[in-house]
């Protein structure tokens, strides 16, 4: 018995495209020549065509009667929140509350910043006492001097820069 030549992948693809009417004229003529001389190709085309036809047995499902209505009603849900959101009383109240809370937070922050700045840079009574400590310690001697010009002369000569010695 004569051996039947097998079809190449490209020829098989072209057979399907031929059945689908997707080949150009030249390629279609080539396939027709293959079909004319190849029993395998003719069998192939026949089976491809018949299996394609049998797909028509698949059930044809259609949408339920309320499908359009259900889908279109979803548009109201999609559109509604954006249109009515800002006019809702809860939104108005929340917005007022938000503004009030914002101002309160800003005031609290300002107060905290002010307190921190004051605490950091403004001298307290204790700071001032510490600064004047050398004078306070020598207050009795200084008052005995009596003349401010003499004290200025002493400062000029660096007398006050010397740490007082603690008496033993």
């Amino acid at each position: 018995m004569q051996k039947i030549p097998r079809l190449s992948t490209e020829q098989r693809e072209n057979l399907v495209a031929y059945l689908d009417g997707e080949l150009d004229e030249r390629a279609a003529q080539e396939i027709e020549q293959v079909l004319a001389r190849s029993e395998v190709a003719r069998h192939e085309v026949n089976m491809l065509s018949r299996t394609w036809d049998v797909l028509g047995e698949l059930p044809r499902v259609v949408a339920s009667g309320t499908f359009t209505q259900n889908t279109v009603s979803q548009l109201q849900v999609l559109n509604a929140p954006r249109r009515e959101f800002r006019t809702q009383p809860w939104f108005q109240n929340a917005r007022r509350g938000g503004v009030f809370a914002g101002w309160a937070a800003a005031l609290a922050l300002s107060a905290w910043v002010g307190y921190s700045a004051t605490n950091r840079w403004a001298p307290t009574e204790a700071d001032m006492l510490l600064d004047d400590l050398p004078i306070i310690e020598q207050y009795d001697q200084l008052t005995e001097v009596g003349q401010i010009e003499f004290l200025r002369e002493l400062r000029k000569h660096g007398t006050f820069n010397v740490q007082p010695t603690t008496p033993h």
Partner: protein
Amino acid sequence: MPERTNVTLSDTDENPVLRDPDVRLMLRVKEGDEAAFTELVTSYQDRLVGLLYHLVSNQESAEDLAQEVFLKVYRARQGYEPTAKFATWLFRIASNLASNRRRDKGRKREVSLRTNDSGPLGPRPAEQILAEKSALMPARQLDKTELREVVRAALDGLNERQRLAVLLHKFEEMSYIDIGTTLEMSPAAVKSLLSRARDNLREKLEPYIHYGTQPADNGE
């Protein structure tokens, strides 16, 4: 500046896609015309539900998914640009949503199953039907319901892209170019995809078509 509301004859010369009446409806939806959207839903609902039914194998899920597709179309209306036929755009959204749904379900089950693999739990119902049918004795004429089951099982045996290409070509009568636009593939790739799909179908369905009977079990 308000957008144009009417498509003129010269517009269709510049952009042939505007000849598609559904594209023009979608442009009206873009301008806020909800009646145009209702018209699109009405004219595509059966086609979309029918297609999705073959992808998810369940009418309720198919309708849920179809509704999701239409709502996605509506949400995307403001950015809509007519670059392809409306049907190819719609079916591309449907294909992406169906794939995402399938992936999500796969993750939930935490079991990876390919459509043409049986997986660790043994053959799935679709595969079982084919196996059971081919094991029946003696050979006899298939009735309509049985043939439908066999065809259904053969279709379920294809991978997702093959199945979608087959459905779009068979039931939507889409050209390779339009299928390519929908599946984001070249027409040459669609040609190969459909060729493989039809080979697979032929392999599974040939025994039933050739003889018009249930194949006999040779083992008995």
